[in-house]
């Protein structure tokens, strides 16, 4: 069992850093997870994180990357709707790392 400490709260995670209890997520937790990943969250990161959380809320799954890219393309235009952009934000894997910071389960499908 691993954990994060966020402002005196002990947040349990799996060995890879995904939250055990999704309801413990908030913005300070996101920042703490991002820090362990070596990322400082910018408004561009938050845009993707919020999108992922809304998607999960609506459909109960993490979107496949191509679905995420398509949705970002529709919503934010070609500059942000491409996988290279996502990789610059989340260099350790657009799907896995972004979901981890967004406090969502580890994506089961990596396609």
């Amino acid at each position, binding site marked *: 069992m691993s954990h994060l400490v966020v402002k005196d709260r002990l947040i349990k995670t799996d060995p890879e850093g995904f939250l055990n209890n999704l309801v413990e997520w908030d913005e300070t937790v996101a920042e703490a997870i991002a820090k362990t990943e070596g990322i400082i969250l910018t408004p561009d990161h938050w845009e993707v994180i919020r999108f992922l959380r809304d998607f999960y809320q609506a*459909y*109960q*799954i993490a*979107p*496949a990357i191509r*679905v995420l890219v*398509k949705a970002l393309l529709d919503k934010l235009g070609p500059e942000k709707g491409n996988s290279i952009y996502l990789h610059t934000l989340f260099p350790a894997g657009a799907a896995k790392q972004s979901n981890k910071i967004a406090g969502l389960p580890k994506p089961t*499908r990596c*396609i």
Partner: protein
Amino acid sequence: MKKILFIQRRSPYGTGFAKEALDAILMASAFEQEISLVFTDDGVWQLKNQQDTKTLGIKNFSPTFKALELYEVKQIYVEQMALEQRGLQIEDLIIPVTVLATAELRQLIQQHDVILSF
């Protein structure tokens, strides 16, 4: 390109078949095949709207069916008789579907290259 038909015939939570099949469909959609999906027998319960699984302690995965369109899975059918036998109507379902008579379902099966029944 192959035409693949997924047949969902079990209720959603008694076994893992329904959820596993849905995962397989989302996965298959990545390979640019032509995918169709039909619900028959107790499988129609998977699409029942307003599911509440709290007392089961299992995640309600029915909202994921609403994501099928985003995954380009747009040919979704339900067998009329299966609905009728369970007192369900098309308005009770969580997503829009095409209703098929049993003979039409038989045709649909014949038109596909691969049949995966869950």
